[in-house]
């Protein structure tokens, strides 16, 4: 990545393990991806596949009973490369990055805002630690951020407590908080899962707008293929701690090559195709993280499983952008294309 200016964050072979209940859960087990400036990377996968842990690792917001085992997280800050995984967890350098260079919004705006402080206070904290603005300027900035996010009467709302905000407004306030210092990267961990569908669309619209205006790179974590199709520039599909397929949105959505990606896409009903469309749910269920399959993690649920799947497949580059972790992808790719063509 070092020579590519357009890459804001590069993750290589990242492993994050959890050590709860005296067991070791390999939540993220060798993940690599790049985040480009001004582009949206969607990380898709079922719950428990390690996508949220990946996000928390980048921010070094992991719980106590977990640690980064190996790998690199390289972040480009003012033409300097910073290895985030080497920084002290709550040390000064890490804190300077958090909130100002990389910001995060969370799944549930109901619980992510502190109920005992006003929204304005919570936004201003971010500005207080990362800018040199004085009190008055901070307040003005808070109000203008809230109004940018489309919150009516921002002068009044800024002094209100989170509980008098609706769910959608709280998420807007969260975004305002995250965008306060114009971060280079915005990590959104399922930002709309807890919201109504109509509100969802508004939030995404807002994020698109911010991306275009500020050239912010967005890492959007979701389990919703519909969201991916709408917003993603690049997509990474995760399963049990690995990225099984990654590429541009076109690569992954139009030419899905990994059996899991394909199965994911087939399990989503498409609007307009009526009641009789074929929806193929994925057979079986995600394995127990403490009792993982030996080789390819998806093998037990895969229709194309063979003996060779007992060994973990390496990453194969199909073309410049499209990569996959599967032994059988060639045959599978052909069969899939045949089926599409017939």
């Amino acid at each position, binding site marked *: 990545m070092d020579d590519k200016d357009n890459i804001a964050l590069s993750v290589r072979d990242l492993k994050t393990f959890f050590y709860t209940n005296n067991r070791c859960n390999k939540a993220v087990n060798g993940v690599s991806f790049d985040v480009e400036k001004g582009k949206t990377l969607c990380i898709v996968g079922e719950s428990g596949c390690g996508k949220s842990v990946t996000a928390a690792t980048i*921010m070094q*917001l992991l719980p*106590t009973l977990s640690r980064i085992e190996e790998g690199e997280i390289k972040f480009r800050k003012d033409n300097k490369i910073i290895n985030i995984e080497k920084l002290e967890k*709550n040390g000064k350098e*890490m*804190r*300077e*990055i*958090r*909130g*100002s260079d990389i*910001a*995060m919004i*969370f799944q*549930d705006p109901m*619980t*992510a*805002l*502190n*109920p*005992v*402080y006003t929204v304005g206070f*919570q936004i201003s*904290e*971010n500005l207080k*630690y*990362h800018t040199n603005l004085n009190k008055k300027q901070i307040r003005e900035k808070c109000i203008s951020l809230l109004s940018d996010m489309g919150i009516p009467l921002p002068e009044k709302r800024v002094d209100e*407590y989170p*509980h*008098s905000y609706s769910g959608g407004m709280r998420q807007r306030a*969260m975004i305002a*908080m995250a965008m306060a210092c114009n971060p280079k990267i915005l990590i959104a961990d399922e930002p709309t899962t807890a919201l109504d569908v109509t509100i969802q669309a508004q939030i995404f619209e807002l994020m698109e707008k911010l991306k275009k205006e500020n050239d912010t790179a967005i890492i959007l974590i979701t389990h919703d293929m519909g969201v991916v199709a709408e917003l993603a520039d690049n997509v990474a599909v995760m399963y049990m701690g690995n990225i099984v397929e990654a590429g541009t949105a076109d690569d992954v959505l139009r030419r899905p090559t990994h059996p899991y990606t394909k199965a994911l896409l087939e399990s989503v009903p498409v609007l307009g195709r009526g009641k009789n469309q074929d929806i193929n749910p994925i057979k079986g269920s995600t394995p127990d993280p403490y009792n993982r399959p030996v080789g390819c993690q998806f093998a037990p649920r895969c229709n194309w499983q063979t003996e060779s799947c007992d060994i973990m497949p390496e990453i194969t580059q199909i073309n410049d952008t499209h990569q996959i972790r599967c032994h059988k992808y060639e045959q599978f790719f052909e069969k899939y294309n045949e089926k599409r063509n017939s």
Partner: protein
Amino acid sequence: MTTYIIQRLFIFFPMLLAISFLVYGGLELSPGDAVSHMISPELALSITAEQLEAMREAYGLNKSFLTRYWIWLTSMVQGDMGYSMAGGVAISEIMAKTVPATLELSLVALFFSTIIGCSLGVLSALKRGSATDNSLTVAGMAGVSIPEFFFGLVAILLFAIELQWLPVGGRLLPSYETVWDRIPNIVLPSLVLALMMTAGAMRYARSSMLDVLAREFITTARSKGMPEWRVNLLHGFRVALTPVVVLIGFRLPLLIGGSTIIEQVYQWPGIGNMFIRSVRGSDYPLVMTISLMYVFVVLTASLIIDVLTALIDPRVRLGKE
């Protein structure tokens, strides 16, 4: 806010009235009447039935139950608490002597236990799983498990009898007049009382803090790149504070209950000591007045706690969620 307080008062007074009625009625059912406790066995042999009757009459024991309750209640509201049966001293006089002693002891103990307990609890939560945390947890459990009088007795043996640093008990010695003279007497009982309560406050502060630290807004706060002290204290402790304030309120009964036995151990001339004496002597007017005073204190405390909670936590104040 005002409506909230008025609502609470609507519960407060009927409750107090109902309890006073029950206590009055309850003591009515107790074996023997007060007169039989007032005369010594030797006197009982020589006393006549008429004399007994006259004594009953004098103490108003012959009227019907409801009438007596009504008389007692109205005089109580007017501030006349009646007379103790042992020695015929005015109860208000006894109260005036004993309540300040108990307040002095309890408040000193409350002050120390709250400060020590909260800071140790928060420390323990922040260092969760460490050796510090584990030993504090075990020490806290020991604190709630050792009977307070046993702890008090060991303290007397050690500091008063063996080392002779502090007096064995009592509050005011005849020639001791200044505040400084009195301090040695309060040290042992208040520290014993405080240590017993510290354990509870610490456990509670720890669990409340842990509870809050696991909440998502703590991650949010951390994701803003703020220093850990600000995340822990401003976002963590501030929210964890509400239940701790409630706890101190709930601990008030424990505090004045706990001081009852400690007062006995240290011969502290407080209300608890007086209560035990009145229970032993079946001095019903005194038993009744003191227990109602306890109820009054507890109810008032819980009222104040509710109001305080509402002030600290805006969700309660506005009646939402």
